[in-house]
């Protein structure tokens, strides 16, 4: 039902924009960051994450308004909501959910078609350090934090670096509880 909902929202309740415009805009941001930070790719990764975080804390509002999803009971449900609904609605793709930890508090998303990295070839010096799509990690971190899930999100592998697939890992650290102000 999450899959059907995701497809329905994508088809009927989502305004769309040309994917090439999106890809080229993101590409120009990343390449400009590389120039601005004088090819210090750790700083670029950090800045992309920060940008993504700022997007994520806002994007979750739009997501919940469109889907009206209730709170997920566990991380398994959360992973399905992320892959079948969120990625579908915003990026028109459905990553695969795999590699659940034994405690079911961590999982991986295998991203096959990433519109952010279409037609990208990393320069040699960037291959070792730059996580090109690191903005996605920030988006997920920010969005999950707004629904009281404090998570670590990071890339394990990336096809742009020559790996077999692009894998993103999400690990729940703790469930945040609203605290009464002093």
């Amino acid at each position, binding site marked *: 039902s999450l899959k059907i909902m995701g497809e329905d929202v994508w088809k009927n309740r989502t305004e769309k924009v040309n994917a*090439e415009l999106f890809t*080229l805009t993101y590409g*120009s941001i990343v390449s400009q960051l590389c120039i601005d930070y004088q090819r210090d790719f750790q700083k670029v990764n950090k800045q992309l994450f920060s940008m993504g975080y700022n997007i994520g804390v806002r994007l979750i509002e739009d997501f919940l308004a469109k889907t009206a999803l209730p709170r997920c009971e566990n991380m398994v449900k959360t992973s399905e909501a992320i892959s079948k609904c969120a990625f579908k609605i915003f990026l028109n793709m459905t990553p695969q959910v795999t590699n659940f930890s034994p405690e079911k508090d961590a999982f991986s998303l295998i991203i096959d078609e990433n519109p952010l990295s*279409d*037609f*990208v*070839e990393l*320069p040699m010096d*960037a291959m070792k350090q730059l996580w090109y799509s690191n903005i996605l990690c920030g988006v997920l971190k920010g969005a999950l934090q707004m629904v009281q899930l404090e998570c670590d999100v990071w890339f394990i592998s990336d096809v742009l670096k020559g790996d077999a697939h692009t894998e993103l890992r999400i690990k729940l650290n703790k469930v945040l509880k609203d605290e009464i102000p002093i």
Partner: protein
Amino acid sequence: PQYFAILGKSDNPVYEAEFTTQQGQQGQLQKGFPQHLKELNPFIMHASLDIIEDLQWKLNSNVQHGTNNSGFGSFLRSKNVNVTDNCYLGKVDHFYGLAITAYLTFSGMKFVMIHGNLDKNSTQVDDNAVKSFYQEVHELYIKTLMNPFYKINDPITSAAFDTRVRSLARKYLN
């Protein structure tokens, strides 16, 4: 043999390659241009740029009213073909039996090729095959442009690009 180059906005070579003929039936080795011609190729190509730019900026007076924009002539006039949206200019120049063909991308990059002939006779150019070659290289060039880390007008140093261009040359030119 052919000498192919992609020329940038300042007539700078963005990509260069020489395509040699295939092995002959008598087991001849691959033959390229003779050494003295190899050194001359960039100069021959450079000499044809004036003609190419003349064609590039000449308005096509053969365009009918209403078929293209407001009826003004469009750019990219070909000497041989009257199609207004044609990037392929055909044979634009010659140099002592060598033929020079050209193709213009929409952003003004020039694809130019010198066609040699080992028999030292005047070279015949198969327009359809050459046009197909140029069009496929154009697609490869667009993919290169889509890479945000590639700066326009910079040399294309990708080995993958070179391999694909050479395989297109084998497919269409030899």
